[in-house]
């Protein structure tokens, strides 16, 4: 029995993605705590290892060692399936992202759509987690997560659609190939409005501050994951970081020229841009206070959505001219 080489390629890609997510989880935990520390004029973690580099390992060991507890009245099936449902789609999301000229898990014509479709599952996971915990804070967190992510998904899709219209494709590699090595040849120069809308919506979709209402700790304890302990919480946490990487990767591919760059093109440019975006997201979190819920919805429905529609219309006019 011979196995198709494509299948082997995908299997290897999935293993590499798993390693990438795990490693990035560790790096981002350290980076986030360190950046937060310096922004707040304190050193951040520095006890465990040089510059606190081993701190995320200690955190991970602590999480793995903790007991998994389920509230007595919680629905057991839904309660335990929610963190798994939040984490597993992440593997699919990375599969069609072109990290380098040849470094891609699977060439797929509808790669962009695949990412958008499967990232929607996270909301479902948050909802199930919030509902099945049988806790009013969890339920409120879940209700907020739904209202927020359904609302912000619309301008996000419209912003992405503008890029798809411009090049007439949903294939991420093709979109990268249409851009050049120099920064002024990137899509962010022709679609600046779409980039800003995409970035704001993406930060809101991942429930990061200043849009972290589903887990606002000062109001809702911890929101939808109040009742989760140990690795069940760890999976939600890892999924959140993975989604941050995914949205940064998609932003890099769509707007910042992907693996193109001055000098030698390659995955190093890609990673550099992704990490720059992640740093901006972390920076935003520790700079701005949380928005109020009415502000959150007003920004979306009164500003982002009309702007995204106007942007789409302008794109259409320019493409057809």
């Amino acid at each position, binding site marked *: 029995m011979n196995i*198709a080489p494509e299948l082997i390629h995908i299997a290897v890609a999935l293993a590499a993605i798993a390693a990438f997510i795990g490693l990035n989880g560790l790096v981002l935990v350290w980076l986030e705590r360190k950046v937060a520390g310096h922004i707040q004029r304190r050193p951040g973690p520095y006890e465990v290892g040089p510059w606190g580099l081993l701190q995320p390992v200690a955190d991970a060991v602590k999480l793995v060692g903790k007991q998994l507890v389920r509230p007595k*009245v*919680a*629905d057991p*099936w*839904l309660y335990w399936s929610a963190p798994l449902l939040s984490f597993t789609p992440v593997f699919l999301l990375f599969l069609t992202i072109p990290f380098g000229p040849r470094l891609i898990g699977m060439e*797929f*014509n*509808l790669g962009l*759509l*695949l990412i*958008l*479709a*499967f990232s*929607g*599952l996270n*909301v*479902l996971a948050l*909802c*199930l987690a*919030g*509902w*099945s*915990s*049988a*806790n*009013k804070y969890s*339920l409120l967190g*879940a*209700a907020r997560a*739904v*209202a927020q992510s*359904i609302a912000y*998904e619309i301008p996000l899709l419209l912003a992405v659609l503008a890029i798809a219209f411009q090049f*007439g494709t*949903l294939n991420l590699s093709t979109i990268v190939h249409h851009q050049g090595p120099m920064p002024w040849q990137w899509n962010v120069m022709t679609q600046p409005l779409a980039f800003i809308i995409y970035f704001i919506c993406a930060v809101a979709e991942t429930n990061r501050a200043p849009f972290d209402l589903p887990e606002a700790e000062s109001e809702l304890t911890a929101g939808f994951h109040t009742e989760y302990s140990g690795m069940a919480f760890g999976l939600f946490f890892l999924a959140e970081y993975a989604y941050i990487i995914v949205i940064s990767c998609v932003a890099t591919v769509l707007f910042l020229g992907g693996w193109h760059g001055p000098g030698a093109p390659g995955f190093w440019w890609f990673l550099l841009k992704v990490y720059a975006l992640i740093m901006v997201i972390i920076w935003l979190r520790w700079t701005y206070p949380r928005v109020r819920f009415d502000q959150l919805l007003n920004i979306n429905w009164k500003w982002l959505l009309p702007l995204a529609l106007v942007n789409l219309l302008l794109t259409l006019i320019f493409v057809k001219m």
Partner: protein
Amino acid sequence: MEYLAYVAFGIYVLIILTGGLMAVLCRSMVRALVGLILTLFGVAGCYLLMAAPFIALMQILIYVGAVSILILFAIMLTRAPAGAEEAPYIFPWRSIAALAVAFLPLAVIGGMIRSGQVTPLVPPTEVPLAELGQTLIEPYLLAFELISVILTVAMAGAVILGFERRIGK
């Protein structure tokens, strides 16, 4: 490779049936909804098997990612959280009638297959996205626009209903 398609079809049908049974038999509304979502996933898999990945992904994006989440939202707003949802257990007659109705399409389709000549279909090929769009706005333009009108009417209706209730209070 053909047997792989049969295996995949078997798995998808199993997913659809399990989801369907969950949706019908579960006492808890949220579990029933999870069953529905499972079914929608299985249907998306069947689209994949028919070489229509665009439709499959749209199914997941719209039905799983938006519609079912709105249903979940509605359940969360109307019902007390968790614990078992109380639904009285109805036995015999209704269940039997429901089963009979479920087997009706099987009988109809089975009869058609037995009476007529069934030729195996050619393996489906993927339709390019541009062609799909072209068919939507050329031969099927009227139907396409009518769907938007229906959606607009439904949305306007929902808004009017919401406002009327508020005035009534």
